[in-house]
């Protein structure tokens, strides 16, 4: 048995392999549930339960919002060859920016737009540092952005425990509640802060057009797929990379603004602001294969998994991190299917 390259797989083969591997993931997942003493069928049903009612769908939507914003930006950054692993930190910086505007500037109709602007700018600035180090000194952005996550994390901890700690919060580590002007409108009783959702959809559409219909996107695609060709053509690689990185950081910052202004209404401990959206969004971007438009599909998909994991946790009192197991198995399955669809298996010796 051996593998040979198959440069041109048929759609049927690709679909079949994806189905096969997803089935395999479900099977393995069943094993995990069994080991935990839960009927796999019941668990599968719970996993999909958010799709069954409006409340569940709202939960999915609320988790989709940050995944969509960050995923769209990351799909661009990855395509251009900037491996931003620090969206989580950029999201937190966005939350900090939002909190600053909400807590320390006089409230007014300009408050929300200003929060998004400053939040996005701080997110961009945060990744901009890593991008500059990469362009100027060749420092691996995978390491720098990853490490910056911790810096951002402890910056937020410091702020909520120190200078920004609320006056009316007793021993809790968070700021005072944002004023009315700094709160995003939501859909009915749900936690769906729709302005941010619109921003996310808009970002995915805009980036898709930018990437595939403009000269800037053309240059980005050249640089991302073949840096040697970009050099040969005399494209300004450093500048192109920097812009793509800044866009991804800006969008992650917006996601952070949405979380604090739309859901928590205050700046609180980083682990509560984001449930690892910055990391889950990497999957959304990876699955979208460098097409921002496809993030409109992959972000809700991961949103279902996150919301379903929440349901598992609540109904079966499984630990919340079971979500990671679910997401991880599905991702492995998708990667496996992808890799195998580009090869053919020869059984004969």
């Amino acid at each position, binding site marked *: 048995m051996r593998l040979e390259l*198959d440069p041109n797989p048929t759609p049927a083969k690709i679909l079949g392999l994806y189905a096969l591997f997803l089935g395999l993931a479900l099977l393995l997942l069943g094993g995990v549930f069994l080991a935990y003493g839960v009927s796999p069928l019941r668990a599968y049903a719970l996993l999909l339960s958010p799709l069954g009612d409006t409340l569940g769908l709202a939960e999915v939507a609320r988790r989709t919002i940050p995944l969509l914003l960050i995923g769209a930006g990351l799909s661009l950054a990855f395509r251009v060859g900037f491996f931003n692993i620090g969206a989580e930190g950029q999201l937190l910086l966005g939350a900090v920016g939002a909190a600053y505007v909400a807590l320390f500037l006089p409230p007014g109709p300009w408050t929300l737009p200003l929060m998004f602007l400053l939040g996005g700018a701080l997110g961009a600035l945060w990744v901009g540092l890593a991008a500059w180090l990469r362009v100027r000194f060749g420092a691996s952005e995978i390491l720098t952005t990853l490490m910056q996550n911790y810096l951002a994390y402890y910056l937020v901890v410091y702020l909520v425990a120190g200078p920004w700690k609320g006056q009316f919060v007793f021993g809790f580590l968070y700021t005072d509640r944002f004023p009315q002007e700094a709160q995003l409108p939501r859909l009915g009783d749900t936690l769906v802060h729709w302005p941010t959702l619109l921003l996310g959809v808009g970002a995915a559409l805009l980036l898709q057009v930018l990437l595939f219909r*403009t000269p800037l996107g053309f240059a980005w695609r*050249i640089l991302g797929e*073949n840096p040697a*060709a970009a050099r*040969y*053509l*005399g494209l300004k690689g450093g500048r192109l990379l920097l812009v793509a990185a800044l866009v991804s950081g800006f969008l992650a910052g917006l996601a952070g603004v949405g979380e604090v202004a739309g859901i928590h209404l205050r700046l609180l401990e980083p682990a509560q602001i984001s449930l690892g959206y910055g990391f889950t969004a990497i999957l959304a971007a990876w699955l979208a294969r460098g097409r921002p438009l496809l993030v409109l599909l992959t972000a809700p998909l991961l949103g279902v998994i996150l919301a379903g994991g929440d349901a598992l946790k609540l109904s079966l009192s499984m630990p919340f991190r079971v979500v990671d197991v679910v997401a991880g198995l599905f991702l492995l399955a998708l990667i496996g299917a992808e890799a195998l669809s580009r090869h053919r298996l*020869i059984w004969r*010796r």
Partner: protein
Amino acid sequence: MLKLENITKRFGPVVANRRVSLEVGRGEVLALLGENGAGKTTLVSILYGLYAPDEGRILLEGREVRVPSPKAAQRLGIALVPQHPELIEAHTVAENLALGLDLPPFFSRRALEGRLRELLKDHPLGVALEAPVARLSAGEKQRVELLRALLSRPKVLILDEPTSVLTPKEAQELFQEIRRLQALGLAVIFISHKLDEVLAIADRIAVLRGGEKVGELSRKEADKETLVRMMVGRSVAPLPKVPPPREEVVLEVEDLVVPRHGFPVQGVSFALRAGEVLGVAGVAGSGQSELVEALAGLRPYRGSVRFLGQPLPKDPARLYALGVAHIPEERAMGVVGGMSVAENLALRTFRAYAPKGLLDYRAMEREARALIEGYRIKTPSPRTPVRFLSGGNVQKVILARELKGGPRLLLAMHPTYGVDVGAAEEVHGRILELVRQGAAVLLVSEDLDEILALSHRVAALYHGRLVGPIPREAASREALGRMMAEGRA
């Protein structure tokens, strides 16, 4: 000794080999001749255990064998010298050879060298065992690959395009070595697309075309014309005469110095007139890439370079706009595989398709269609990703894009490397047409015939220094070989 029967190999809808049968006996040299894409490499890969054949049998000394992996091939006594040496540069010759041996987990350097000398006692070494591979010439590296192949005491030795990295003199030495091995009783399979070599070394010649064996001749029956006709399926027209150059000087290079790792390119001076082709030969790594990259704005340099009387800018995008086209050394540098043929044809000029901010793909594809037709690029559609095209067609895409603006200077590096005879002929035709229109061409190539056929003057790079240029009439293959190998005209 070794016999292939009706080997067929398909890759999806593409048939790489169709019912190919070959036989090579003890002490015989069989040449496998064919253009790129004729199926030579696939056949070798099957023989060496990299691919499994879909149909057909392999017989070794009369027994049917299976070759599931390169390791199995070596055990069976089939050894391969790859086209490009696959050695670990930072290690010594002995250490590289050790990779092919079964060794205890710890061993001393002296024990290893002793063992190697004993195993290779029938063969002249030709290189120092303790020398680091990085310091060897291309020919010496190939020698190491050959020694490594001989370590497994093979019965069948496969040489894949062995002369593509060698100077003519080194090639002669390789041929002597092949004769010696032949006398020891090895069966040798010699793969090439160069007719002269094949005629010089082979006992029998099998010609592949389009994956099929189109004929087999003994050395006595074979002559150049027959072989070309078999390879290409038609006879190839000789190149048209190049008109003499004009007076106007296009490029003036004085005392050019290009720093680089190892020895720099230095003291290079020449002038290039309109309608003139200057051919530059050289052993791989003598500074050709550095020279071309410097002029193309990809590498810093010192010295005076003037283009049409003005200092030459150092930015590739500005150079193209001024009329300096560049066919890069590596095809992979000149195209973006995942982007379409139309997009690759617009790689230099894509901004012009977006006067209002959005790219006009309809205009881009319309112009692409004209170029595809004009250059006879074989592609299903302008939207096909370039990575699905064959090497020759990719090269035509690059050529079409670089020439479409009517350049005044063309920097062409290996413009027909790895391209089949038909495509090479078209590339040469295009370059000559450009020259007739008054462009200057700096042609850097490893193919001496190409240089001699196209150039008005020829030069060679030797350890970073330019030898020559001398007029084409004063140059012969032998003279060029001396310029490349010894640095004197």
